[in-house]
């Protein structure tokens, strides 16, 4: 098919062609076209099916406010649903499909819904699918889900990259129409750092759509000249294809730049879109205005569009939707459309104006009356007019322009909860006084709908925003027509007159909503869905409000608007995520031994952001338990090594360092000798345990504190809080050194023998006893730290070196330990050994447990003040019935003891009211050859040896267990001190 509806002129590049495909059919357009303009040029008006009734629809607009012409763009992994044909820039090879249809676009099987329109009214789903309840999940929901929704997802990974960026400027100008361009010119010439952003690919706004002149130039030429000058100014950044989506606090704006959407595929190394965060001192909102339609019976047929859109198609894209066009208007703008189209050789069937004092024309017929209905199954063919004197006329036309007036695009003025004001002159909302800080609104967005108003507004806004002195620059001569408008929203007596074409909401639905008591605008929106979905009611909200106002006997401003929220136009989740997807979702932190562990075939597990070795399988091992059991036994029988770098390390220095630790730990540190390490328990102020670790005193005024891996950050934050906010004059400094030191646990009876070969100093039991710590050197001089602490319950050390030597140290340990068959172990074996030893960890310090629950009640010093000490003495946390940490073993050694299961008395009822406690950590103990667990039990300390039922009704667990000490291994601690 040739481009039958292509007109002369326009701003398309006729020297080049773009071949594209819509629903499998090939067409040709030109660079400068949108998908919608190119389809219209080819005589295609039908572009989609409506959401609910599957009525045939074509574009209503020529911009981002489009409710109807939603298509699936591209194919394969790049397929994107719900893109607006009116904003999709045409490129060679573009592929698009219509959506929301069963069968073809011309014969959509779900169009049957339209026959049941009397049933499918507002609130249909709420009223209909109420009972029987059992049918909801199995029958109703699957059917509704299948029928609902618009486009479909590819369900494949998006192959493209999305980026985030940050920009700073003095002045952000939103919109590059006459207002924005004039503002940018004024500010740019004054030397300000300016960002000029516009959602369109061609700058100029309505100047590209109109035949108006500025000075002695066409509007489009003037715009091109201004853009040319701005491009020479180094202080001005011009950003086409960039939608400012939201105004956030303190001059922060979000903007999406569509870098590659207008290409077949992004250039190598380029992102598809960029989310910019713009920090600006001042902002000029020059977002223009959006035209609104008039509702009447069957006003949704393909070919029926906004009058301004018809002008855009004719003047900018050199396209008419049909050779015969009628106009329905309540203001002078409709006559402008007729004049422009007539000048391009389009036949004007008639201009129908609801006003009695109608401007006459010599070129075409002007009627005083209103449209009452239309005909045409897949596109408009006839329009019926009722003249003011009551007689009926039928107009033959394939396109119809609706002009109901223009609404200023005030959305962003309301993103900080600003409320708009009503302006009677243009019968529309304009920005209120409570704008986001630093924002000035100008031009059509501020209700000045003439070109002169735009130019003046833009220049004045730039002056005001930047505090420029002097007069406004001399502005070129431009159109300054008044707005002659009679508010008119819908034709009396209509019912299936579409207000919101995207959601298929009719005048009748709004009336029904009111009748059923949904009278606030927010209720109306949710009950009828008016103003929802991708267009957010840009063309429909005002009509709904007007009808609500009429029914309630109020004015439109009394009824009010729903709240405008970001984003201004639909924003892909991909650009909000940016590069934070898949493996890059959060940072990946590698331990110093990672490379080495990888070479050993370690299996890794994510712990916070860290990747830690979980176990080190050997070729012969077929199950992870086999590996873990071997690692545990090897450590207990000889020696094992584990990377514990991920544990938080905090360096605490100053003359008040010990006093400071006395505040953050519930137990005392003042008397800890230099060269000694002590376990410390940290409470929250409410008396609940926060974290535990060790503090090693390396000098009188120097401690090294460890935290659990997961709490490294919160504990450090808390320590800074205590230091800065609670005890501001303590002489103490804290700094996180987690990344600065590589640290390995070397555990097992042969650990001393192993380390003696590496450490330069004497580490015999006398010289370096249990809980000793100190600065040492290794391998003949490398500075290091040694701590004789044990998480496994064995004779053990932790040895730390500056991180750069971490890889060398693990290799050295393995080499020195070869004679003892030193075995690397992972987090799983670490966990087994600490459960065997009854050491609490994250599962026990779970945000609900106190020192008393953990069996450390007596550690909370009453002789000093520490965070949490006072509230840990509260009644509810003490006395009869408290939980105590105990151990569990199965009566039948073959039974598991699963974590999460709850304890019940052996002969009592099994229900929540008789709950006795729960299991927190469980494992198979290779040392004991059966399952073991630790957990919390009511009055647990007094119930050793008791037999209980351990149940988990959800997973079907019901086993008999015996209560034991949590210390399954070496309860006297002889191994530790060996």
């Amino acid at each position, binding site marked *: 098919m040739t481009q039958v509806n292509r007109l002369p002129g326009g701003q398309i590049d006729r020297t080049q062609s773009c071949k594209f495909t819509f629903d499998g059919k090939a067409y040709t357009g030109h660079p400068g076209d949108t998908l919608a303009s190119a389809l219209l040029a080819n005589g295609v008006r039908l572009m989609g099916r409506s959401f609910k009734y599957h009525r045939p629809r074509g574009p209503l607009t020529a911009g981002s406010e489009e409710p109807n012409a939603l298509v699936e763009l591209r194919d394969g992994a790049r397929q994107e649903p719900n893109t607006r044909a009116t904003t999709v820039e045409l490129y060679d090879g573009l592929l698009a499909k219509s959506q929301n249809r069963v069968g073809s676009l011309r014969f959509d099987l779900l169009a049957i819904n339209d026959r049941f329109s009397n049933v499918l009214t507002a609130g249909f789903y709420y009223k209909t699918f109420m009972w029987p309840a059992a049918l909801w999940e199995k029958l109703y929901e699957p059917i509704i889900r299948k029928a609902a929704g618009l486009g479909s997802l590819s369900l494949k990974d998006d192959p493209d990259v999305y980026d985030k960026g940050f920009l700073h400027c003095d002045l952000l100008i939103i919109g590059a129409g006459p207002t924005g361009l004039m503002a940018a010119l004024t500010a740019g010439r004054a030397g300000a750092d300016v960002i000029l952003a516009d959602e369109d690919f061609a700058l100029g706004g309505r100047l590209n759509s109109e035949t108006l002149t500025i000075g002695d130039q066409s509007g489009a030429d003037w715009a091109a000249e201004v853009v040319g000058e701005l491009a020479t100014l180094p202080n001005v950044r011009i950003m086409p294809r960039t939608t400012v989506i939201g105004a956030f606090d303190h001059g922060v704006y979000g903007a999406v730049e569509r870098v590659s959407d207008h290409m077949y595929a992004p250039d190598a190394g380029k992102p598809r879109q960029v989310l910019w965060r713009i920090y600006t001192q001042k902002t000029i909102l020059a977002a223009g205005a959006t035209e609104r339609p008039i509702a009447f019976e069957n006003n949704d047929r393909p070919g029926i569009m906004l009058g301004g859109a018809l002008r855009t198609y004719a003047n900018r894209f050199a396209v008419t939707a049909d050779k015969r066009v009628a106009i329905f208007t309540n203001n002078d703008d409709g006559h402008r459309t007729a004049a422009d189209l007539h000048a391009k050789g389009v036949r004007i069937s008639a201009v129908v104006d609801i006003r009695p004092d109608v401007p006459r024309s010599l070129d075409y017929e002007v009627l005083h009356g209103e449209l009452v209905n239309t005909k045409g199954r897949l596109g408009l063919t006839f329009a019926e007019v009722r003249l003011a004197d009551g007689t009926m006329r039928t107009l033959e036309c394939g396109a119809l322009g609706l002009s109901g007036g223009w609404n200023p695009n005030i959305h962003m003025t309301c993103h900080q909860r600003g409320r708009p004001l009503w302006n009677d002159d243009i019968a529309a909302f304009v920005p209120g006084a409570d704008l986001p800080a630093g924002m000035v609104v100008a031009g059509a967005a501020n209700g000045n709908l003439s070109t002169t108003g735009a130019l003046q507004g833009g220049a004045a806004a730039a002056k005001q925003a930047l505090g420029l002195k002097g007069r406004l620059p001399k502005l070129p001569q431009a159109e300054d027509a008044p707005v002659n408008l009679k508010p008119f929203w819908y034709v009396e007596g209509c019912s299936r007159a579409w207000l919101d074409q995207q959601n298929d909401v009719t005048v009748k639905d709004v009336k029904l909503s009111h009748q059923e008591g949904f009278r606030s605008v927010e209720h109306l929106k949710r009950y009828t869905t008016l103003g929802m979905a991708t267009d957010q009611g840009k063309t429909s909200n005002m009509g709904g409000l007007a009808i609500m106002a009429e029914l309630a006997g109020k004015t439109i401003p009394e009824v009010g608007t729903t709240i405008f929220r970001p984003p201004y136009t639909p924003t892909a989740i991909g650009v909000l995520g940016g590069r934070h997807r898949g493996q890059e979702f959060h940072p990946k932190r590698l331990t110093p031994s990672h490379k080495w562990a990888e070479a050993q075939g370690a299996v890794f597990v994510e712990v916070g952001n860290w990747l830690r070795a979980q176990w080190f399988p050997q070729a012969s091992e077929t199950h992870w338990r086999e590996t873990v059991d071997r690692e545990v036994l090897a450590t207990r029988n000889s020696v094992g090594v584990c990377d514990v770098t991920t544990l938080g390390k905090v360096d605490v220095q100053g003359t008040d360092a010990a006093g400071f630790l006395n505040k953050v730990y519930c137990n005392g540190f003042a008397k800890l000798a230099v060269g000694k390490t002590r376990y410390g328990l940290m409470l929250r102020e409410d008396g609940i345990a926060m974290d535990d670790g060790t503090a090693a005193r390396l000098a009188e005024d120097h401690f090294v504190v460890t935290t659990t891996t997961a709490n490294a950050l919160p504990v450090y934050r808390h320590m800074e809080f205590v230091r800065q906010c609670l005890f501001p*004059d303590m002489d103490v400094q804290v700094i996180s050194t987690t990344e600065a030191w590589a640290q390995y646990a070397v555990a097992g009876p042969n650990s001393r023998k192993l380390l003696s070969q590496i450490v330069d100093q004497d580490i015999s039991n006398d010289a370096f006893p249990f809980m000793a710590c100190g600065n040492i050197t290794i391998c003949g001089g490398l500075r290091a730290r040694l701590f004789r602490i044990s998480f496994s319950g064995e004779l053990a050390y932790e040895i730390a070196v500056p991180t750069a030597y971490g890889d060398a140290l693990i290799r050295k340990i393995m080499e020195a330990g070869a004679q003892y068959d030193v075995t690397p172990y992972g987090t799983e074996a670490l966990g087994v050994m600490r459960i065997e030893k009854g050491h609490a960890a994250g599962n026990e310090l779970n945000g609900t447990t106190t020192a008393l629950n953990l069996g450390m009640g007596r550690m909370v010093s009453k002789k000093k003040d520490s965070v949490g000490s006072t509230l840990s003495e509260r009644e509810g946390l003490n006395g009869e019935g408290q939980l105590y940490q105990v151990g569990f073993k199965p009566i039948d050694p073959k039974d598991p003891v699963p974590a999460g299961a709850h304890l019940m008395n052996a002969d009592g009822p099994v229900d929540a009211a008789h709950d006795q406690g729960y299991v927190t950590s469980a494992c198979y103990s290779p040392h004991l050859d059966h399952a073991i667990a630790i957990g919390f039990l009511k009055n647990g300390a007094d119930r050793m040896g008791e037999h209980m039922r351990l149940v988990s009704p959800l997973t079907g667990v019901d086993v008999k267990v015996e209560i034991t000490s949590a210390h399954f291994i070496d309860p006297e601690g002889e191994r530790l001190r060996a």
Partner: protein
Amino acid sequence: MIIDHPLLGPRDAAEFTYLGDAKLIDRPDWQSETARQDFYEYAYLRENPAGWHQELWFHEAGDRSWLVVTRNTVTHEISKVELARDVARARGRSK
């Protein structure tokens, strides 16, 4: 949101971690007769003002200063930003 750090100038709120009401600076005396009641109120009771509010922010991705930010909870306007340490001293928390 932008927080005007008294040492570093305006910084994006994304660099900070929020804690809550700056009354957390006013930790009670543990040896007072009414210590338990005082700590209960300190730990659990908060005003929830629609308007000006002094609150604690931690510059976690920055210089690790705790700040007292005076912010309007309705408009998000920030009228004052101080080092929490200075506020603590002014409130008598010196040794």
